[in-house]
């Protein structure tokens, strides 16, 4: 048992590190531009092109798709090395992590030819248009419709929780094309031009104050049938490919989120009626439980990486990640605010450590929902890992347009 690279891994790491050292430039230090800012887009495109030219994009993709044809450990190693710096990478996470793999798994050769390389080299930005106000956890309940007339589809409806919609050039969208079929059967996936007439992306303000997502409205938007991905009615099956990729991507603790060390620092500086906070057993137990959750998830990820390094499939234990991380963040933040007594609620910037925890308290409420709620994730663990039967699904076989909620 060890935590060391194998010889080929070490070699790849050295190569990646050398390239990064030589090319990282101004991203050696934290950058000033925030997500969504125009500068962020410009910098992202430049950096992505640099990586593309050097062969550090699509590391695990087949060479026929413009990828490097390497294993998942190479990708992990490159990302580890890259994350030591502050390069702008988030713009492509959805497109290259979810959309384009769906296109090259289910798209026609023409679509692959047209879109994959441009996405990989960062010229075109992609988003994923699945969730709707009426269809969150129950994604197959979507209502946005696409109606065919000759070779042209017309899309009408609304999507929501779309990351980077306003910065994207294209999106993959799931629409209902046959409401007389049961809900999972009448769906079809398309590629939609986000600059087409009738597409409108509006930022969606979150309760935390930020606006990381969009609502996207589609009014009479035309899509040629050649931009269909997969067969008519196969949209759910195609979407599952995308979602499988999402489940792999979602999970770990957000980088820079406060953890047990934050609490140790904070508690060392606080006096209670019964002595320093750090000496209180309640505080010490909270430090311990936070360590166990956060470090446990890190170690669990290392178990998965070890399997990948051996060329095996990781076990299902990865599925516990998000549900542990999000609730731990919320509980830690709440506990830490309590420790600060009256000032726990003050957000005036005078206590940066506390302010990070307050931010974490707001963000964690969203993290417990995004990418599968705590409840949905527990269902997934119980059903897919432990093999328990699914919830009753009274609407499963009913035509979509005849479903009555029970």
């Amino acid at each position, binding site marked *: 048992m060890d935590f060391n690279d194998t010889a080929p891994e070490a070699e790849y790491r050295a190569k990646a590190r050398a390239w990064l050292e030589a090319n990282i430039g101004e991203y050696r230090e934290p950058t000033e531009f925030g997500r969504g800012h125009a500068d962020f887009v410009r910098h992202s495109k430049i950096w992505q092109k640099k990586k593309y030219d050097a062969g550090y994009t699509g590391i695990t993709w087949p060479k026929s798709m413009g990828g490097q044809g390497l294993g998942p450990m190479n990708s992990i190693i490159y990302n580890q090395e890259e994350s030591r710096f502050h390069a702008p990478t988030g713009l492509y996470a959805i497109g290259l992590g979810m959309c384009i793999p769906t296109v090259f798994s289910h798209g026609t050769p023409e679509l692959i030819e047209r879109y994959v390389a441009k996405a990989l080299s960062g010229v075109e930005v992609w988003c994923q248009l699945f969730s709707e106000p009426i269809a969150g956890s129950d994604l197959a309940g979507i209502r946005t419709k696409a109606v065919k007339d000759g070779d042209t589809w017309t899309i009408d409806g609304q999507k929501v929780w779309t990351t980077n919609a306003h910065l994207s050039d294209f999106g993959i969208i799931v629409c209902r094309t046959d409401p007389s079929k049961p809900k999972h059967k009448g769906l079809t996936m398309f590629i939609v031009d986000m600059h087409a007439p009738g597409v409108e992306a509006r930022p969606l303000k979150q309760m935390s104050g930020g606006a990381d997502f969009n609502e996207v409205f589609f009014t009479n938007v035309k899509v040629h049938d050649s931009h269909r991905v997969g067969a008519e009615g196969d949209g759910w099956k195609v979407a599952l490919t995308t979602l499988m990729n999402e489940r792999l991507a979602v999970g770990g603790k957000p980088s820079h989120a406060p953890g047990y060390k934050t609490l140790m620092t904070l508690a060392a500086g606080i006096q209670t009626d019964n002595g320093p906070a750090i000496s209180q057993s309640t505080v010490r137990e909270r430090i311990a439980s936070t360590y166990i959750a956060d470090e446990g998830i890190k170690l669990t990820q290392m178990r998965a990486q070890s399997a990948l390094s051996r060329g095996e499939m990781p076990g299902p234990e990865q599925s516990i990640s998000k549900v542990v991380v999000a609730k731990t963040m919320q509980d830690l933040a709440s506990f830490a605010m*309590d420790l*600060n007594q009256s000032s726990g*609620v*003050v957000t005036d910037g005078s206590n940066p450590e506390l302010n990070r925890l307050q931010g974490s308290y707001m963000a964690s*409420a969203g993290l417990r929902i995004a990418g599968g709620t705590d409840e949905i994730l527990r269902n997934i663990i119980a059903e897919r890992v432990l093999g328990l039967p699914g919830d009753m699904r009274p609407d499963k076989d009913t035509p979509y347009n005849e479903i009555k909620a029970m």
Partner: protein
Amino acid sequence: MNFDFSDDAKTMRESARKFLDANAGPAIARKSMNGTATYDADLWKAVIDLGWTAARVPEEFGGVGLTAEESCVLAEEAGRSLAPIPLTSVLAATEALLRAGSKEQQARWLPGIAEGKVIACVGWGEGNAASPSTAALTVKDGKASGVKLPIADLLGAQLAIITANGPKGVQLYLVDLGGAGVKTELVETLDLVRRSGKLTLDNAAVEALGDPDAYQDWLDRAAILAAFEALGTTAASMDMTVAYAKDRVAFGQRIGRYQGVKHKCADMYIKLELARAHALHGAWAMGADAGELRQAASAARVASLDALSFTAEETVQLHGGIGFTWESDCQFYYRRNRQLASALGSSAWWADRLVRALERRNAA
């Protein structure tokens, strides 16, 4: 046995709920979020006209002379409706003047409070992690310098009742906010509806209100009022969640059918009713000047914060994505939860106070 509110208090509760249902609630709270006013002046005027600020003030000082029970139900309804008015601050301050004030001090301040001309607020935090047992702000020769922060409803108030370290120990002091050497400014907090302020004293005149024992006695009473406020907020948050769970459909079922949802709603109710039992115990102890006051107040505070924090967090959770949007009302409960948790000493501090009270009783 009659372990319940008096008929008078119940009548007051019904009429307060009816008025606030019509005139407050999340929509009114949302209006206050973006305004520059620190409270809703129209609503506050209406509340004064209804006599709520006068309810607890004795008749000799221009009030109605009602009991602590009426203050408790008003605090609960203020909490339920998220009303952006300084009502609970005024109720807590009134209680301080009643418990700790001299006749002269009462005569000076209570008539104005009753009439609505004086808004009074309460401050003990000092912007660091001070506990309700301590105060860095020290009074010498009737003058004080230092900072109290955050104080809910400070902006717009004429009177602040603060804790400070005096010659006899930590106790309450009166600060005339119009006096020399007194500065007030708005301070940002997680709660965007109920605004808090920073009070800076620069050799300002302060006046002792009672003694350290009176402070402790008042603190228990203030905790009971705060517990009722938290109960009201919890109930509103739970009601909104239950209504949503009856309505929202996923996978062909109303989500309230799923035990993952319904058991959480049941837990909200369980925590709420446990807290309500202790708060009611506190209301009785306040009225009866009972020896159980300390333990009832401490239990009410801890239980009500437990109910509120669980309910506010799971309210967002059970609403799913929509609950995390700015437009959703969930955030009001999520944010207010932190405001109430920090306003009068943490749950952990009160749990310790509860055990001290039990130890004292065992020893007696």
